[in-house]
């Protein structure tokens, strides 16, 4: 006789595909090399064919988010795919990099994260509405490996549209939300916050070590939020051992039911 927990596990497995998490086909698995983080994801795999948002408030955090995301996109690009990068644009100056006044991703550095910059198409637009339109059209396009959008504000409806697009096309989307006025609720599968950590130079060597980040998975649909310390070394992610608490729910991310009962207790 199956025990109660077996039944629940089976039901959970059945519910996942209904919510848009198809278990990856064997041989089709992209190895992100996220190590211990995989336990937090539904089905035990990093959710591809979904929209992830990365929130940041400082310029340094934005750069760290871009780096972490670069590692993920680099893994997705390994099969030769192309990426569309939608960003806030401005007037482009004559010879060099498009100068929009804001800091801009530097294609030269993307190679460090396993991305091939010449397979990244940058679309620069002035209005947020246009950027969302391009993002949605791009997510519908099955030929792309990933779509990146530097879009700070996104409402529930817009995010739901993106989610519906990716569920059909299985393209992975990343939203870089820098200094968003209101994070709010949306239909993205995961919300990340990446902040830089002090690097550890290799034994006996001076200078700056490999990029190291504190990666917080704030929200994940059907998964377990957590916080990890990761390092980008030698072209792959490496979990840092002395991390603060891998996979444990962090402070401020109390499960919903617990929060409710707490409120009830206070009220009662």
């Amino acid at each position, binding site marked *: 006789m199956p025990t109660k927990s077996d039944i629940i596990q089976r039901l959970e497995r059945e519910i996942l595909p209904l919510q848009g998490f198809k278990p990856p086909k064997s041989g089709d698995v992209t190895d992100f090399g996220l190590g211990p983080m995989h336990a937090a994801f539904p089905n035990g795999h990093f959710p591809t064919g979904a929209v992830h948002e990365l929130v940041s408030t400082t*310029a*340094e955090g*934005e*750069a*760290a988010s*871009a*780096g*972490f995301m*670069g590692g993920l996109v680099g893994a997705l690009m390994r*099969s*030769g*795919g*192309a990426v*569309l990068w939608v960003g806030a644009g401005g007037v*482009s100056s004559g010879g*060099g*990099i*498009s*100068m*929009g*006044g804001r*800091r*801009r*991703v*530097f*294609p*030269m*550095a*993307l*190679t*460090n*994260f396993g991305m091939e*910059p*010449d*397979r*990244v*198409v*940058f*679309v*620069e*637009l002035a209005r947020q509405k*246009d950027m969302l*339109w391009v993002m949605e*059209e*791009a997510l519908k*396009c*099955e*030929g*792309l*490996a990933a779509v990146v959008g530097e879009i700070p504000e996104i409402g529930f409806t817009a995010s739901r549209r993106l989610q519906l697009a990716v569920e059909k096309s299985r393209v992975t989307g990343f939203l870089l939300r820098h200094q968003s006025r209101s994070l709010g609720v949306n239909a993205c599968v995961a919300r990340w916050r990446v902040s*830089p950590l*002090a*690097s550890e130079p290799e034994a006996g060597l001076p*200078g*700056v*070590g490999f*990029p*190291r*980040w504190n990666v917080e998975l704030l929200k994940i649909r059907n998964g377990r939020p957590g916080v990890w310390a990761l390092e*980008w070394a030698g072209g792959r992610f490496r979990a840092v051992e002395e991390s603060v608490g891998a996979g444990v729910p962090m402070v401020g991310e109390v499960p919903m039911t617990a929060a409710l009962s707490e409120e009830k207790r206070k009220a009662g």
Partner: protein
Amino acid sequence: MSSRFVTIWFPLLTTDWFALRRPELRGIPFVLAVKDHGRMVISAADRLALGQGIPPGMPVADARALLPELQVVDDKPGLAAKLLKALAVWCIRFTPIAGVDPPQGLVLDVSGCTHLWGGEETYLKEIVTRLQTAGYTVRAAMADTIGAAWAATRYGVSEVTITGSADQTAALLRLPPEALRLEPEVVDRLHRLGLRTIGSFAGMQRSALRRRFGPGLLQQLDRALGLEAETIEPVQPRTQYQERLPCLEPIMTATGIEIALQRLLEMLCNRLQKEEKGLRSAIFSCYRVDGKQQQLTIGTNRATHNTTHLVKLFEPSIATIEPDLGIELFILEAPTIEDAPAVQETLFSGSTGLDNSHIAELLDKITGRFGSGSIHRWLPDERHWPERSIKPATSLQEKPTTPWRTDRPRPIHLLPRPELIEVTAPIPDYPPMLFRYKGQLHKIAKADGPERIEREWWVDQGPHRDYYTVEDEAGQRYWLFRSGHYDDKQTPQWFIHGFFA
């Protein structure tokens, strides 16, 4: 199938035009005059003046003596040529190949066009009626060769002549020799010899004709009889890939235009697909009833013959077409064509690179909506100066010529312009101990560098840069540089240029 040609003759082309422009000239005899050796000479006369025996070439003074009430109008130089060109362009609605035949004629290659109007009679009648309604005196003829049609237009019995293939030679032989478009001297000589019809000399020995009248006569005779081919130069060069859709009723609605576009694209794409070609640009022209023309143009990032995709590219701009009283003809042209080898449809497309057709279509959509200026792709350039180390790719297919460099640390976010920071740094070439950026103090814990990047002296002048990768106590990483050396005269400035991940 033999070719069919229509020639149209406007015997009173310029005077008709003046009568149209100036209604007060209608119904009275008038002539157009030009200055010639200090006197006014008639260059064209209207029907009434011709009836009074005033031919072109007569001095105005003589004509005035004959007919005192004659009106004289200054002729416009180059008017006839301009009018003919415009009329030829107008005739494109009947056939794609329309050429001018100066001074007063048009030549149309109508092979395979007449059935669209339900036969040769209705076709030619339609042309003539519409030109006559517009106010021109017109004579037209249709025949298998340009020469025969030309002869029938100028020397035929009726205003509109259609000569069938069988009786063309017989009809031609009855006409006078000037119907062969010959030099005036040759015609004169033929008449003096009593050869008053083409038939009277067409059967003579060719060598004798050549000796007496030159090779021109034989050539024109051969052309008229269809023994030698003759081509016309169309007023508008015909694009090889062109589809036409004439409409019975003028189209006035957006839905109608969409249907027309869809059908034209299907025809064109079917053809392109068979020939393994794809279009890079397309022009959709609408010819309105009132003679105006409206155009839509699109371009694609790679050669395509995908109808659905092309319709989508045209769709946003369909609303800009003003049908006004209606559109009677749609033409779709593809001026730029490239090879697009047929790809085998794969069920599980493995290729997701830039050569994927879905991506090209997506980029076309973005270009169509926001312009091509919004799309960039970067390739490495063989330059060290960070701002110039990448260059924009010119096409989607362009591959990097040098590999991307990974041996030097480069920040993931680069500031568009280096920003000035305040530093405390030991001299001469140590990284700073602390720096202040946007009011925030950063104490530096670890640093790498310097990496000296020299300015490209052939581009601009100025100090070199010494770059340092630094990490502050909070673990945040920056790319700083010192502009120039420390020396006796000045202390160099420090800048922040980027953020590392």
